[in-house]
């Protein structure tokens, strides 16, 4: 007997792990589950391991101290050999993990895998998703920069909206009255001990149940799940038309895991680590905080909710959404598994995917935010200043100087908060322009107190020139009538065909 065989036997006689491991790895699974659609669960687990390993490696250097964390991140980026790569792997690993966990969940939902007897596997999966998102948020906090600081401010402000105990919750979350060192240490404890500990235990249970209850078979239209017969049907499928999990199905998991790890490494090497952005100094007001990719969609939702709906939405919808996910296997625990016969399920996934994609896309250019430096950084294109009177040009000056550009684009540059003004004079008459500028309305601030009468006149004269060639300017028919002594003109066409307003 060779030496390695003897060593193995010596160990096995004491550990006795061979039996359980063989049982788990060689258990028969239905042949149909050896599919590329079934690789996302194992890939999530592989990414979890990657995050644990890279996280421990970063913890060798990181220190959760509010006055040092940012400098340590800079040191990791620039001085520790390959520190930047480890940070990048951890950051990109986080993005990939959220994405793969969500894809895994969508696949499992569409394949009806949450139905009997795998209800609890699904429920634990919901908690695994929440924990993964929790890890992503707390991880963003540990990258202690401006985005982290203001992300915490947003989190605290959301908690502050909870009735009665909101104030206490804020102090509990921050570990004190403001965002400071105590906040960072408690998010460190969450990110490094509490959440990953729970994540690993629940992942263990999740995988244990997958092994014990069997991998969900490929759903066939018309093959209904019944509590009385399902286990027997599944066992027949697994034994008569099955194959051992290893290597029959596992080789695809292995290929995909390798591909995912490689993709994370390539993204890390190519795009580099996330930040840190500016120092977490709240007195630096000139900052435009942004959440990490997994939370961009929430950014959009919070911007577009009407003010009066915001608090109810924030407090009711998340618990409701979680309750729906947790309640799903109890409401639809039996019956049809195939997506061919579950149109509501398919359209729900499509709807959510489209919503998520549009919201995330919007958050990449934040049309709801004023462009803070457009007034000083985006000059009005000269085409809009040619053949203007001095008064109109002075109006353009006012337009620029009073930060109108922060919200209104002209010639394709400027903010998107308000409408583009390239052709505003085709929509509003001079009187309407004056009213809009002075009184605001329709989500525009009133400028009555900040514009002097000459400034207002100049500004409105400039805006009044903004009607592109061959487009008639907006006009007030009643004024024309009044100008003719109350007698309507025979035709209004003659006034509509030119570019000049009747004054």
């Amino acid at each position, binding site marked *: 007997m060779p030496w390695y065989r003897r060593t193995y036997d010596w160990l096995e006689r004491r550990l*006795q792990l061979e039996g359980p491991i063989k049982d788990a790895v060689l258990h028969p699974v239905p042949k149909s589950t050896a599919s590329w659609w079934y690789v996302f669960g194992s890939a999530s687990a592989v990414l979890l391991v990657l995050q644990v390993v890279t996280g421990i490696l970063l913890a060798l250097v990181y220190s959760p101290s509010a006055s040092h964390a940012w400098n340590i991140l800079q040191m990791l980026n620039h001085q520790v050999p390959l520190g930047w790569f480890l940070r990048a792997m951890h950051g990109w690993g986080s993005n990939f993990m959220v994405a793969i966990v969500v894809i895994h969940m969508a696949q499992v939902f569409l394949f009806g895998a949450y139905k009997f007897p795998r209800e609890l596997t699904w429920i634990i999966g919901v908690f695994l998703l929440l924990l993964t998102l929790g890890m992503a948020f707390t991880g963003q906090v540990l990258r202690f920069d401006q985005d982290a600081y203001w992300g915490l401010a947003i989190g605290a402000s959301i908690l502050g*909206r909870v009735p009665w105990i909101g104030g206490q919750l804020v102090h509990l979350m921050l570990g004190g009255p*403001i*965002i*400071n060192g105590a906040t960072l240490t408690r998010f460190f404890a969450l990110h490094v001990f509490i959440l990953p500990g729970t994540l690993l235990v629940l992942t263990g249970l999740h995988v244990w149940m997958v092994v014990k209850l069997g991998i969900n078979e490929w759903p066939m239209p018309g093959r209904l799940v019944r509590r009385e017969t399902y286990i027997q049907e599944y066992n027949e499928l697994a034994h008569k038309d099955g194959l051992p999990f290893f290597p029959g199905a596992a080789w695809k998991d292995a290929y995909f895991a390798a591909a995912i790890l490689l993709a994370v490494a390539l993204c890390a090497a190519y795009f580099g680590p996330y930040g840190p952005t500016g120092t977490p100094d709240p007195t630096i*007001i000139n900052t435009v*905080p942004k959440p990490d990719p997994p939370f961009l969609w929430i950014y959009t939702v*919070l911007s577009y909710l009407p003010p009066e709906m915001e608090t109810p939405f924030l407090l009711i919808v998340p618990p409701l959404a979680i309750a729906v996910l947790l309640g799903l296997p109890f409401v639809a625990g039996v019956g049809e598994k195939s997506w061919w016969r579950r149109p509501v399920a398919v359209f729900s996934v499509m709807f959510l995917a489209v919503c998520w994609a549009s919201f995330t896309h919007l958050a990449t250019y934040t049309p709801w935010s004023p462009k*803070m430096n457009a007034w000083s950084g985006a000059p009005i294109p000269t085409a809009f200043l040619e053949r203007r009177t001095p008064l109109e040009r002075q109006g353009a000056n006012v337009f620029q100087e009073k930060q109108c550009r922060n919200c209104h684009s002209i010639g394709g540059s400027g903010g998107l*908060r308000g409408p583009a003004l390239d052709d505003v004079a085709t929509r509003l008459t001079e009187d309407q322009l004056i009213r809009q500028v002075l009184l605001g309305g329709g989500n525009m601030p009133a400028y009555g107190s900040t514009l002097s009468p000459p400034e207002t006149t100049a500004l409105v004269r400039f805006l009044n020139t903004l009607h592109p060639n061959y487009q008639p300017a907006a006009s007030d028919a009643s004024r024309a009538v009044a100008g003719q002594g109350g007698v309507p003109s025979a035709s209004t066409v003659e006034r509509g065909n030119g570019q000049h307003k009747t004054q």
Partner: protein
Amino acid sequence: MDEKLPPPSPQEQQQLLERDRISRRSFLMNVGLAINGMVGVLLAVPVVAYILGPVMRRREYLTWIDLGDAAKFNPGETKLVSFRNPFTNEWDGETANIPAYVRTEAHGRYTVFAVNCAHLGCPVRWFSESQLFMCPCHGGVYYADGSRASGPPERGLFEYPTKIENGHLFIEAGQMPTLSNSAALRPCSEKSQPTLVKRIAPCPGTDEPTIG
């Protein structure tokens, strides 16, 4: 491999349990569990109190903070200032430096705003030319007096209580203002108000005569 001890079969386990159901041993086991339960509860009290430490304070995190000589704030200006939060430690670094806006209408008339947007706490930026505070996150905009101008906020900017002592401007501050602490409870001062602005802003807007 035959050196392994076979584990007891489920039947054997069941029989052993049945035999011990009512016995001195099972009684002692139950007492042991009860003692552990009591010790657990006893230990949970300090643990929970420790966790709730930041919340269990009797008083709010508020104190009067000196912003310096009041004469340095010029009438008609809104100025960004910063102060060191008193409820902090040395190792909090720059996070303990808290900014605020001081608005001076006339000498003796000061309003001090928190920089945190009343929507979700992002830092609003002051634009003196248009006399507006704009928020970079979700697009909240406020007038010079802190009242809501547009965007998602439900109310005006948070204000710190102020007082003047020995020529110095003091504010009562110390905690991050959110909708649920005392900052939220400050009533808006009643000023005459054009109806249109009043409709869109729950706190009074500008009181300049140019509107309406």
